[in-house]
């Protein structure tokens, strides 16, 4: 789901699909944020082409030159028409520009920090110790974002920098009333003391994505690698409820928590009834998820009963329940309506068996980095 725009990462598996990091050359010395305008196919330049825009001057097969108040920026190896409206973070010393917000994509996520206080067994983006404060750049980027965007905020754990995060939200939401946020957080760091600050925000424009893996505290704690995490997330979801926050519960389906999924469904219906969406998500083969694939991947094509019963229960009690990242053919026909295509455009792929599939247009397929031996025992029987 929440795609990650990668800042300062050494390995970038996404680069094979749509490049998120561009090779550039610039006269500037300090890092800065700029919006690129190539105006191709546009009747006329938009009227908000302000001092933070760089307009396309010249382009040949290899290079495009953008110029604006922030100086000249030479971008290599990309068709400049694909960059129109993109907001990039330029790091002159590294000769790179990160596409923080791609104008053509509905999936833009800003990585607030790489630090995290949990260590989930399947983490797709294992945490790191160092932290670079990107809030000032992100603030600029959000102010330049296309109209009516939903911006993802992720990590690491964004609420490790809670007061900066609240400041950032307050500032950008006051200046851009059309923009919504989707924030992925482990919800370990809220407290009743945050109620006033939370209520001060327009919470109808923020969806908090919070992982809950099991209704058995010990299993949840084991999955997230933190003692007491379950009790904390329970308490803090309650705080978010009191504040009036919109909540998306996220449950990655794995061998350790699959048997308890029906109990979790009951727990959600009874204890977390304020959940806007409960997303049951198939495992992503990346980061620790790849390392621990053998002990984690749950073949839901064969064991769908566990998923189906949980979904039956939650849906019957009015919980909006979805299956994310499930190839449609692995889901029994009656349940497919709950499995929207959720894998972002830039990281979606299909396998050879998908070539003639009738469901392909509605199916999210696989993550691009999913092994070709996909692990589903019952596949392609749509």
């Amino acid at each position, binding site marked *: 789901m929440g795609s990650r725009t990668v800042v300062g990462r050494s390995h970038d598996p996404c680069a094979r699909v749509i490049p998120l990091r561009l090779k550039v050359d610039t006269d500037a010395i300090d890092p800065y944020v700029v919006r690129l305008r190539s105006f191709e196919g546009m009747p006329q330049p938009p009227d908000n082409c302000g001092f933070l825009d760089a307009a396309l001057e010249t382009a040949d097969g290899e290079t495009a030159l953008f110029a604006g108040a922030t100086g000249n920026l030479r971008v290599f190896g990309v068709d400049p028409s694909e960059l129109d409206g993109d907001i990039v973070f330029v790091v002159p010393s590294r000769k790179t520009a990160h596409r923080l917000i791609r104008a053509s994509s509905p999936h833009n996520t800003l990585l607030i920090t790489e630090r995290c206080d949990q260590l989930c067994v399947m983490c797709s983006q294992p945490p790191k110790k160092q932290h670079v404060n990107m809030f000032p750049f992100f603030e600029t980027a959000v102010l330049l974002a296309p109209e009516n965007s939903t911006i993802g905020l992720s990590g690491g754990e964004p609420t490790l920098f809670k007061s900066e995060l609240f400041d950032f939200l307050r500032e950008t939401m006051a200046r851009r009333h059309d923009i919504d946020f989707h924030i992925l957080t482990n919800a370990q760091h809220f407290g009743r003391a945050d109620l006033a600050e939370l209520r001060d925000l327009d919470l109808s424009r923020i969806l908090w994505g919070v992982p809950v893996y099991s209704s058995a505290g010990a299993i949840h704690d084991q999955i997230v690698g933190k003692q007491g995490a379950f009790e904390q997330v329970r308490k803090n979801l309650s705080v978010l409820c*009191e504040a009036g926050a919109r909540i998306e519960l996220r449950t990655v389906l794995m061998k350790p928590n699959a048997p308890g999924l029906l109990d979790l469904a009951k727990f959600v219906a*009874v204890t*977390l009834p304020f959940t806007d969406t409960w997303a049951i998500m198939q495992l992503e083969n990346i980061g620790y998820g790849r390392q621990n694939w053998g002990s984690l991947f749950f073949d839901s094509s064969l064991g769908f009963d566990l998923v189906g*019963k949980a979904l039956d*229960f939650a849906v019957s009690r009015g919980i909006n329940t979805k299956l994310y990242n499930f190839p449609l053919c692995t889901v029994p026909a009656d349940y497919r309506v709950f499995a929207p295509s959720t894998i972002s455009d830039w990281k979606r792929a299909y396998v050879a068996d998908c070539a003639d599939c009738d469901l392909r247009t509605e199916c999210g397929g696989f993550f691009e980095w999913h092994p070709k031996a996909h692990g589903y025992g019952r596949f392609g029987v749509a």
Partner: protein
Amino acid sequence: MTVWPLKFRECGDGEFLLTDDTGGFFLSRQPFLERYAAGELSLVDQEFLRGNGHAFGREGDPDWTAFAYRWAQRQASQQELSYVILVPTLRCNLSCGYCQVSRAPETARGFDWTEATLNATLGFIEAMKGPQIKVEFQGGEPLLRIDLLEKVRSFVRTRFPGSQFVVCTNLQRLGNREWAFLDQEDTFVSTSLDGDQDTHQRQRTHDDLATDTFYKNLAEAVKRLGPGKVSALPTIDVDEPPDFGELVGNFERYGVHSIYLRPINHQGFARRRGSHPSSIAKWNTLHSGFIDYLIERNHRTGGFVEEYYFSQCLRRFLRSGADDHVDLRNPNFFASDYIVIDHDGQFYPTDEARMLSRIGRVDLSIGSVAAGIDQAKVQLLNHASFNNFDPDCIHCAYQPFCGTDVVDDLSRNGRIDLARTDTWFCRRHMSIFDKIVEVIRRSDEAARKSVAKWARVPSWGDHMIPVHA
């Protein structure tokens, strides 16, 4: 640990249904009930009650907050006015024995909107907030005043683009102008189809020619407008019910799979026929039999047909938020999200209230388009429009799923302060919820398939009902 109050009802085979005020429920047996009543809950009992949402540790803890949230969700929240039922004429070209609404002969005078009423109605609609509204044309037969319908629709379309229109018509007389009006993207048809041919003719059309015309027009409407655009309701005379097989087959033939079985109403002309005290028992037996019939039929045909109201009640039983049916929600505040404007410009809180007033039983009008909404009267009605504090309802296991119907009580009994169990409304809903508890506990494939469809879940089974031994 504190346990929230539980209410119970025996449901057969020694099992009890227990519910709390949020609509949380489970099944258990006599020994548990005795432990609960004696205040001698075991640790296992306590663990179950906590896990199933019936208890909390201390005020403000997550269990307490979740319970408060679920309770609040169980209450229907007041909405903006977004739905108007318009009666541009009371005249009708049919004379059904049970007429639900009262009607005037087609040639009568003084039963249509005047120019002033039309303009005041448009002014009232113009002041609504929007952005989208729903307009239902009732009658009489509203198509007798197609000119008024056209004026209203074109006005609403301009003021609230994307609005919807429903024409409640007997489909007896449709010329080019009427067809052109109906055959529009934003316009829907609702009609009466009383089951089999004989019953329809006996109750509504009275002669072969009129019956044939109706069926021909219904077929044409489904074909021309598409099946999703035409809905139909059967009105059932409990003393002369139609054959279930023919009734369902008739509806399926016209693409209708959700059938709202309505008893002949106690208002309008129907009231004059009187209502025998045993008629509610008869109705309940008939309705329960219809549910059994549908389960058996769906299993046999592999098709899916539901009784609309039963499905609605089933969903209310299982979850909060099923408040879209205006006859069953709690509280059911009047003149909040919808209002009726009669042929003389009077406002009524419901269509039934309009009928009741028309027969002179009690004046339930709540103002007029000329004078505005009479808020004092609305509030008077609203005082009794919820079941939360009713001295009988508070003991009932079905209270959180149920509602109340002031207008029905007035209609049948002339008063609203009866013991609930003596009212038609209560007896009807006790029977429906008993039936729900019966069918969701059935373990046969046929029942499970239908229940799953009706509850709008992929499948149904033992995992769907919490049980505490």
